[in-house]
């Protein structure tokens, strides 16, 4: 039995943690949250120097050819620090899509630049405040020209290209495809949209005849999107676990510092039990995520079920830890000054980014039904 990360993976984790503790303290998160930058460029550059973005990219394309497990340990640390960088968009989504379905030319063009961080990619799936579904996608690709709009697109301002979920004609799921579009070209307009977590900027992308090329087979977009989401669910879960754990320790440290009625508030059972519940949820999520990581890394047949369970568990842990962290801080926790807001914002952002708990619980149960029927 070896259900744990290897010593090398733990060393990588420590290295990333040390870098982020030094270079990405909460004041950096606050700067991006409160300011015009699309992301913390200096943190992005530092991560590139560590080789973080190229972790899972094959050596032939300039990456280090490691695997999903290494990405998981990096993700946990990024989540712990609420890092304001386009890592999830570029690495878990855009890079993953290219590695899975990119043509040779697409891979040669983008992977080396993704690996060294000089290019940023993203995924544009949604079109407004409704879940994306085969019935709601209006953006269309026809004759190499893309029209329509996508929002909210994470890191849409910073990204060099986007993988876009588009309608290519036909009915139902088969109407959808993925397209790759460069965002600096003609026919693309982008503007920032306000979100609950401005430390991770989102944009509205408007396409008017923008040049785009298909990514993967036409009519296969919905399946590809879901496959991409399964992989991302596991990686994002590690960000959520890192964030949840950070929120838990933040609450714990405050509970030791703050006195009320002549005692540390952490000596009251009401607070102790709240914190113990955070711990329980974090550990359950961690255990589920380890299995998800193993399935993702091994391309195991159980990935669809494991990814859904991992995501449901991680959303629950981070939501709970982030909101009860504010509650533990009392009035102080609800101020702009306090750092509690970063996790509260991030927990919701990560809970919704690739579909919320309701959608993933439904996926989980239907996949369990399929598995049991098989």
């Amino acid at each position, binding site marked *: *039995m070896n*259900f*744990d990360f290897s010593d090398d993976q733990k060393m990588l984790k420590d290295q990333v943690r040390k870098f982020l503790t030094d270079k990405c303290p909460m004041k950096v998160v606050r700067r991006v949250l409160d300011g015009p930058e699309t992301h913390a460029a200096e943190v992005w550059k530092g991560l590139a120097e560590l080789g973080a973005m190229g972790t899972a990219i094959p050596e032939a394309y300039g990456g280090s050819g490691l695997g999903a497990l290494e990405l998981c340990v990096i993700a946990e640390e990024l989540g712990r620090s609420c890092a304001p960088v386009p890592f999830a968009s570029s690495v878990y989504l855009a890079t993953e899509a290219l590695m899975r379905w990119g043509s040779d030319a697409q891979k040669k063009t983008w992977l080396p630049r993704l690996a060294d961080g000089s290019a940023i990619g993203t995924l544009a799936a949604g079109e407004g405040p409704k879940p994306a579904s085969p019935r709601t996608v209006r953006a269309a690709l026809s004759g190499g020209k893309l029209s329509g709009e996508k929002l909210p697109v994470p890191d849409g301002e910073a990204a060099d290209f986007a993988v876009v979920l588009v309608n290519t004609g036909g009915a139902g799921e088969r109407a959808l495809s993925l397209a790759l579009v460069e965002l600096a070209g003609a026919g693309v307009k982008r503007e920032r949209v306000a979100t609950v977590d401005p430390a991770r900027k989102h944009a509205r992308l408007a396409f008017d005849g923008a040049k785009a090329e298909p990514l993967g087979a036409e009519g296969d977009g919905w399946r590809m999107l879901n496959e991409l989401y399964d992989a991302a669910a596991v990686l994002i879960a590690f960000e959520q676990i890192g964030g949840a754990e950070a929120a838990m320790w933040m609450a*714990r440290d405050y509970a*030791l510092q703050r006195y009320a009625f002549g005692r540390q508030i952490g000596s009251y*059972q009401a607070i102790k039990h709240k914190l*113990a519940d955070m711990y329980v949820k974090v*550990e359950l999520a961690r255990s589920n995520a380890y299995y998800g990581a193993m399935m993702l890394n091994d391309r195991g047949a159980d990935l669809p079920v494991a990814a859904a369970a991992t995501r449901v568990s991680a959303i629950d842990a981070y939501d709970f830890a982030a909101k009860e962290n504010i509650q533990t801080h009392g009035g102080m926790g609800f101020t702009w000054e306090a750092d509690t807001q970063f996790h509260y914002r991030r927990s919701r952002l990560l809970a919704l980014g690739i579909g919320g708990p309701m959608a993933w619980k439904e996926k989980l149960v239907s996949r369990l039904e399929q598995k049991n029927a098989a």
Partner: protein
Amino acid sequence: MDFNDTPEEAAFRAKARAWLDANAKRKTDDKQAYRARVDDPELLKRAKEWQDKKAAAGYARITWPVEYGGMGGTQIQQVIYSQEEANYLVPLGFFDIGLGMCIPTMMAYASKEHLTRYVKPALHGDEVWCQLFSEPVAGSDVAGIRTRAERDGDDWVINGQKVWTSGAHYCDYGIVITRTNPDVPKHQGLTMFFLSMKSPGVEVRPIRQISGAANFNEVFFTNVRVPDSQRLGKVGDGWKVALTTLMNERLAVGTPSGGLDVDELLDLARETELEDGPAIRNAHVRSKIADWYVQTQGLKYTKYRTLTSLSKGQTPGPESSIGKIVAAPKMQDLGAFAMELMGTGGVMTGDVPGAGGFQAQWIGGAGFRIAGGTDEILRNIVAERVLGLPQDVRVDKDVPFSALGKAK
């Protein structure tokens, strides 16, 4: 990351399996259980026979030193053996408290002569041991016990009452915590002994639980004489000795939990028609199934993480408390929800087809949330020992036991 054994673990597993194959009957499917009523007198006899066989082969306590009849093996080997044994139809469950808690306490505090006399018969199942700690007013607050032991010549005379003593009705010996000095703060005036359950003045009365079964007992002591040579630890050091016993409780990992869970709930939802169609198509039902599935899997993989640290020679810490914090309320809630799916029919237990199991989970869950530490105590353990929060305020800390109010 993988779930496979290391080569050494695999070799041990193969050896254990070969021995089990030669000595026991393999289950034909997972759900099969050794069927017998707990109060069936034949069951204890068969359990003792099985224990004797195991002890002769060294499998009864793998981690114990060879001189005490163990194998001098590791915790992970113990877990591997238990996993393998769970695939066979064998009677288990009578010796866990004695071998898991009482005898390890004896090993830490009893004399060489006593160990020579008592360890082997316990290991072979010839003598069964129980642990006499809880009292009617001392549950989670074990140090609040009132059972008195008073010195009389070479003996001590014990008077008082214990409660929730598992197996006292078939046990031969027990370790008992008593109060020997009421005039000092509660933790300081305790002393531990071991005694024969057949001693004059020991009276065992079974307690019928909410489930109707009677696995626990009240034990009454009326002028029970125990020689001073059967004292464990110094006079007044009983709390320290009790902690040795309680620490050993936590090492009980790796045992299969069993019982009805999400798979069975899924089956039930498939077979149940609600007013708006099959239950399995109901969004509320699906959401509940998802939540419990995530908990069940989370606990399963938490156990795998614990096994991994055992496998590396580490000892599991208070982190393992989370298992019961999650599993016990889940049993209760999942059971209740399954009964709800059955509608009015959910009230039926007994031999009605499809009924019984979930009802038993619901009833049993209520007790499981209390046994071996309540939800509340376990949350305190996590908060204090894992997260480093201050201990609960103890207003009785420096007060002599005799000065504490009756209402304490």
